[in-house]
């Protein structure tokens, strides 16, 4: 409630209704995020049910990544300053995640308790080898998302 009153009295109040409306290419971003959230969730749920003991760290990270993609998708759609901040946090977290986990999966797969680093293999996650199994979309998407968020803020001011 406090967030609502804050955002309506903030600089966004100058453009009510239009400032936070998702338009144009932003819709495409949301759809791609949604598909990635769906893909990551489906895969991590299956891996956890079927073979959690094989690579528990990697699969837990996979589930965390899926959750963050879901929150990011919602944050991109939802209006208001709070969700705008949530969008920045989740998208930054994704970029950090894909870089850290991507590097670890190549350099030190044992840290993730993975026994193979095949990006298409049975232990692969959405972030393995910088998202290679997902056509590197997990690597590119946070950058596009940040660019779009920065532009959106510039537009609303």
């Amino acid at each position: 409630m406090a967030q609502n009153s804050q955002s309506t009295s903030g600089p966004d109040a100058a453009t009510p209704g239009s400032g936070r409306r998702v338009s144009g290419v932003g819709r495409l971003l949301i759809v791609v995020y949604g598909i990635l959230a769906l893909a990551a969730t489906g895969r991590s749920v299956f891996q956890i049910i079927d073979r959690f003991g094989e690579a528990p760290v990697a699969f837990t990270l996979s589930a965390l990544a899926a959750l963050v993609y879901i929150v990011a998708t919602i944050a991109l759609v939802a209006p208001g300053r709070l969700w705008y901040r949530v969008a920045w946090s989740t998208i930054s977290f994704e970029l950090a995640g894909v870089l850290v986990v991507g590097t670890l999966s190549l350099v030190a797969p044992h840290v993730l308790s993975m026994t193979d680093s095949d990006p298409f293999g049975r232990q692969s996650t959405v972030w393995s080898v910088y998202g290679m199994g997902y056509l590197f979309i997990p690597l590119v998407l946070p950058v596009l998302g940040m660019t779009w968020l920065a532009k959106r803020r510039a537009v609303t001011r």
Partner: protein
Amino acid sequence: MIEWFTTVQIAIACAAGIVCLVLGLIGRLPGDVSMGATALVALLLIAQLVVTIVSPIVGNDPTGSLAEFYIYLISAVILPFAGGFWALIERNRWSTVILGVVCLAIAVMLYRMHAIWFVQSV
């Protein structure tokens, strides 16, 4: 899963995806061509679902995990309906582009499903 059917299906999904992307990028609203192409992709996915239900009964078993296969298939079936619904309520060029992205995502998922059925071994 039937190999030739899946190959044809991947080809059609790719073609539909490219057509919708091009139509969207040149500024066309979702129309008969883009919606029709997406509907065809959706129809083929329903056929694939029927094939998947029947296959193990008649002795055509996947080499990989059937559960993992179903997760991909059900996710894929949701996509064209979600994209098509979006195109009906948001009538602008980006909805056409979205239909294209959805069709291409389905092509990738079908490729993965093909690998689970024919290549992956447990």
